[in-house]
């Protein structure tokens, strides 16, 4: 196989071999269900592994052991948080929920689904960098507001929200706060002793861990109705056979992320942004220059279309993604790019580069060299931008 330079690490990551090694035992040797402490030894060993993994996730967030519930990934975690709170508080407190308009689909579509069931949703605007309008948030909180769900960082443009300030506001107003930290967990520190979030979505698939494995932090005494019925697993908060190899893999993946690695990714990011913006004319950075996760660069190449760029890059061995309507199954332009500027053209030529453990500076240089050629070729055949 030809060398592939994979720069779509926000979508999925290559599994780290050390994660697989850690998981293997729980497929082939300790494959039993996690039994109670009075079960058989294989089951007790399985339970111990699960609880040890839980401890690692809890530790990373500064949470208590029993505040972590394993799930099948970010989608489930966010559904569980939003729908769980909605069910728990709709009679007691109200049916108003606040989200930002650039949330990822698990949050956005959970909110839309509740809207159809009679909940009232406020979709907060964001500024040109993707930051939510804090005053609008403050003014939107009402007596019947039950939940604010604002992501820690954006999936496409990488903009970091000030969850510290948002959490404080929610606490002061007595409203629950959920944040989707899928794209920040282990890359940006989160300490729940300082950040007043009641619910936090995290996932393994973005940090070289297994897919379909995530967790939800549920702060003690957070009202949350269990919405998937079944057994009494996960402190009776999430029914279903525990994914022990997944949990063990997730914990291993968390342990393997280092500050050194995060610094390296940030160097890639800054270097790519700098090279592209200085070397390729008519380019715009999407997202905030500083308030940004270390491994994301998102740039619009004006006058050309994103799917054409990604296909050319794919044929040259690079995997990147775009917010262009042509790239999506739904043929809808990125709601994030539209949210920060309202301009279809900006989404049309946007390309997202997300870095991971297996990227090198050579990859970064070569993707910039290649995209520079590709964009130049495509601009030659574009009817736009010739006179400007």
């Amino acid at each position, binding site marked *: 196989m030809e060398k592939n330079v994979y720069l779509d690490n926000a979508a999925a990551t290559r599994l780290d071999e050390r994660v697989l090694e850690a998981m293997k035992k729980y497929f082939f040797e300790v494959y039993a269900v996690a039994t109670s402490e009075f079960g058989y030894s294989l089951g007790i060993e399985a339970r111990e592994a699960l609880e040890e993994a839980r401890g690692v996730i809890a530790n990373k967030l500064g949470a208590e052991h029993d505040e972590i519930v394993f799930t099948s990934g970010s989608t489930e975690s966010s559904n569980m948080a939003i729908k769980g709170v909605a069910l728990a508080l709709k009679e007691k407190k109200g049916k108003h929920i606040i989200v930002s308009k650039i949330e990822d689909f698990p949050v956005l579509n959970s909110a839309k689904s509740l809207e159809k069931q009679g909940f009232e949703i406020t979709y907060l605007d964001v500024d040109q960098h993707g930051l939510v309008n804090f005053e609008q948030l403050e003014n939107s909180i009402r007596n019947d507001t039950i939940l604010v769900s604002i992501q820690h960082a954006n999936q496409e443009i990488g903009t970091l929200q000030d969850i510290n300030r948002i959490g404080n506001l929610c606490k002061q107003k007595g409203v629950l706060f959920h944040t989707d930290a899928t794209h920040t967990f282990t890359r940006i520190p989160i300490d729940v002793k300082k950040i007043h979030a009641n619910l936090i979505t995290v996932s393994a698939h973005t940090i070289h861990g297994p897919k379909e494995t995530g967790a939800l932090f549920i702060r003690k005494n957070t009202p949350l109705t269990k919405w998937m019925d079944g057994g009494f697993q996960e402190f009776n908060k999430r029914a279903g056979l525990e994914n022990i190899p997944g949990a063990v893999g997730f914990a291993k993946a968390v342990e393997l992320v280092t500050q050194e690695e995060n610094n390296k990714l940030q160097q890639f990011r800054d270097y790519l942004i700098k090279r592209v913006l200085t070397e390729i004319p008519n380019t715009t950075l999407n997202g905030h220059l500083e308030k940004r996760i270390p491994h994301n660069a998102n740039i619009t190449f004006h006058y050309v279309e994103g799917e*054409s760029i990604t296909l050319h890059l794919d044929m040259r061995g690079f995997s990147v993604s775009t917010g262009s309507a042509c790239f999506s199954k739904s*043929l809808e*332009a990125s709601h994030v790019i539209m949210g920060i500027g309202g301009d279809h053209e900006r989404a049309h030529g946007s390309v997202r580069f997300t870095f991971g453990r297996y990227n090198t500076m050579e990859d970064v240089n070569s993707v910039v060299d290649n995209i520079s050629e590709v964009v130049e070729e495509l601009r*030659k*055949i*574009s009817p*736009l931008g010739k006179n400007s």
Partner: protein
Amino acid sequence: MKFPYSEKVLEHFRHPHNVGKLENPDGKATEGSPACGDMVSVYIKVDSETKTIQDIKFESYGCASNIATGSIITDMAKGKTLDEAKLITWQQATEALGGLPPIKAHCSVLAVEGLRAAIQNYEEKHGLVSEKSPTTIEIVNNRLKKIMNPLTGLDVVKTNLIKKIEIDNGKVSIIVDLPSTHQFAASIKEEVKEKIGTLWDVKEIVVDFID
């Protein structure tokens, strides 16, 4: 490696034929897709004796399907008479490309529409339109549907930017629901004149904004 398109599409996408602009074209047109934001421009040189397409070029602000269809359809049209070229269908173009994913149909239809519109532009400019029915509000409205609203990627009719259309003795008056200071006001005005100006009985076009 597994790519989402046929070898033929990829070949035309990688090395598109007949790309660029023609200086002083005999006919030209730009079509935009309301669905995805793609755009294509087609330029033709026509032999005035034989009415054959001597040269043809296209430009694309679009995705792979759009570029590949532009490439193949300009190949197919070159050397054909205008009447023959008009009959080239999207199905023929896609078959020649070895098929396209169904969801990409509108991106590639756009290239076919571009060719037809360029031929129509030539015919209108040269008085070759056979059926000279008087221009109606409906005809004007249909032409305005080809103009994109850059804010949404949808056409100006669908997004309710056209407030009023009036036709009086060859004079077409259009009111656009934007202030004249709007960043796209000038370009929309120009596009309106371009789309309507070639209609055989239109002598004057007035585009007003809501100030």
